């Protein structure tokens, strides 16, 4: 009986993490559509990601309530809740970034489009590996480190791409407001990777606590 309830909660945690990964994939598709000018599809992806975000929020709250009311994993409960909440923040940033594209419709110069594709991909890589690390934290603690190293790697790639975008745009003769606007979007996408790294920092400590 107890094990059945535990399995159900395990499934819920897995489903929640699946939603985070899905959110990242939808973000990548949305970005592609935006850069290729397919605005209708882009808006559909935005709708999808917002639904995912909502569903993930409900699921997370449900998981948190269960962890607390049934006093599960008393020793790691705080860490697990912290992890779920901080990975939720990554999903929120992903969704908010897409929303900002929809609201502000930034005009991106053609030579920056591949860079925006790259930055989206590397930041979502960060997100995906962070999710992998969290899954390992639950089940295969020794593998957490491998994922964290990948996250750190892709975060650096993201930073470099963001820098390239900023350097490129500030060396054009466009208006300053345009330059700042473009930089702002690169910065937003970069935040996905930054927040993923924050999750991993938290995870490293939680992992040490579990192993020790």
């Amino acid at each position: 009986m107890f094990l059945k309830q535990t399995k159900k909660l395990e499934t819920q945690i897995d489903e929640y993490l699946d939603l985070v990964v899905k959110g990242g994939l939808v973000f990548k598709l949305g970005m592609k559509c935006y850069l290729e000018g397919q605005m209708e599809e882009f808006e559909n992806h935005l709708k999808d990601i917002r639904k995912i975000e909502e569903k993930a929020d409900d699921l997370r709250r449900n998981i948190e309530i269960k962890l607390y009311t049934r006093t599960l994993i008393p020793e790691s409960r705080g860490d697990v809740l912290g992890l779920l909440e901080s990975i939720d923040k990554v999903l929120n940033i992903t969704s908010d970034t897409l929303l900002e594209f929809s609201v502000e419709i930034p005009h991106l110069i053609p030579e920056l489009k591949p860079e925006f594709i790259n930055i989206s991909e590397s930041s979502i890589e960060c997100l995906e590996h962070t999710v992998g690390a969290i899954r390992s934290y639950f089940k295969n603690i020794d593998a957490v480190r491998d994922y964290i190293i990948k996250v750190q790697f892709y975060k650096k790639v993201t930073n470099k791409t963001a820098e390239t975008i900023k350097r490129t745009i500030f060396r054009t003769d466009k208006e300053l407001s345009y330059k700042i606007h473009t930089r702002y979007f690169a910065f937003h996408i970069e935040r996905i990777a930054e927040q993923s790294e924050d999750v991993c920092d938290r995870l490293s400590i939680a992992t040490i606590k579990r192993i020790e």
Partner: protein
Amino acid sequence: MDISIWFFISSGLFLGWSLGANNAVSLFGTAVTSKMIKFRTAAIIGGIFVVLGSFISGAGTTNTLASLGGVNAIAGSFTVALAVAISITWMTKAKLPVSTSQAVVGAIIGWNLFTGSPTDFNSLTKIVSSWVVSPIISAAFGFILFKIIKNTVLKWKIHMLEIDTYNRIGLVIVGAIASYSMGANNIANVMGMFVEATPFSDVNVFDIYTITGTQQLFLFGGFSIAAGIFTYGHNVMKTVGSDLYKISPITGLTVVLASSIVMWLFTSQSLETFLLKNNLPSIPLVPLSATQSFIGAVIGVGLAKDPQSINFSVFGKIGVGWVVAPLTAGLLSFILLFFVQNVFEQKVIQPVPYEITHSVIQKLKEDGIETEKINELVGERFYHSKIFRNEIMKRNQYSNNEIYLIFHYAIIDSFKVDSTLINENLDSVLFSDEQLKELKNHHGKSFNHKIDFEKTIFGSSDLWVKTGNKLDDKELEEKIKLVENLFRITIVKFNN
């Protein structure tokens, strides 16, 4: 029914309560402090299993207050139990876990000193050394077990939540088993001395099952232990679970597992018999104490995980408690006995006759004890242990151990061999035909001293000689005990 028995029983119930309050920590302490099980749940499970253990298996245990000496008067038992209960309660107040055996030993020695009865220093040394050995063995087991779990179970790819569930189930099961055995083992300490004077009569349940007066008494005692767990059990838990060492769920289970395994391996007679029967090397049986074993396991696991996190000053305090508890119980027992005897005019000792005979002298000589000076006491009967002791000591300054042996051999413990009892009471499966025949040959013989009985009945043929085979010898010892109890006619039951 004599109403005063309820007054005497009240001290047993108080002892039960104090025991529950102090020992709850070794049952569910780690589960509660690691927040795996709520205190309420733990107390309910612990309470139920303690009551079941004392009711179902309590009657079979021999671990009574009298294991060190023969407290043989009910007012004496009352006082000894009261002294034990007060000292355990004091330790509980100070949030220090102690073993019941510690306070019991102290109080019985207090009784021995007060009444002039001799103390069996061999048993005492064994018990006292168990207080040192128990934590050491358990610490070693806890250390090894934690290393094994860390390098195996935690490496298997099991979901954290599943480990949590297994851990919780494990803590409940081990706690329940420990509660059951605590009830079974300690109920004799709590209620054993009142069995002869139980105020309850047998109750027939639907003509199927009869609940004996003793069982009802034990049930009462069980409830008192459970009440102790409920009302005050939480107090000592904090000392062990967070002050001594911050216990996590995994370490919590490791601790209780290690101490339970140690208790089972080193105290289980059935395990020893099983190993011997299967020609496997047996583990030496050592008297171990559950609380000490538990504290040892906490230290062992702590050392394996992170030695820095053990609060050794708390451990030192617990150690001091282990010395203070028996001393307090002994002192209290002595003082209370004085009041009970002289102010309330209650009999705290049933006079037991002693007589030195030629066979006693012979036996003492065999043991290398100087007997010339007490030769003149041969044939004289003493009805008070104090007078007997004074007379002996006047003649020669014997050591404690020698005094114990003189008392042990000189006590009047009468036997009469009655062959009609043999067929009825001695199992022909257990005893060989020759053995039964040999016993019948002694029909009609009577003895005033156990040594004479043993010499005549068991010393006259090869049928009762130990073979050196552990299993056979154990069986032989049991047989001898059965025969002795069958033919014993005095009310004095001196412990072997």
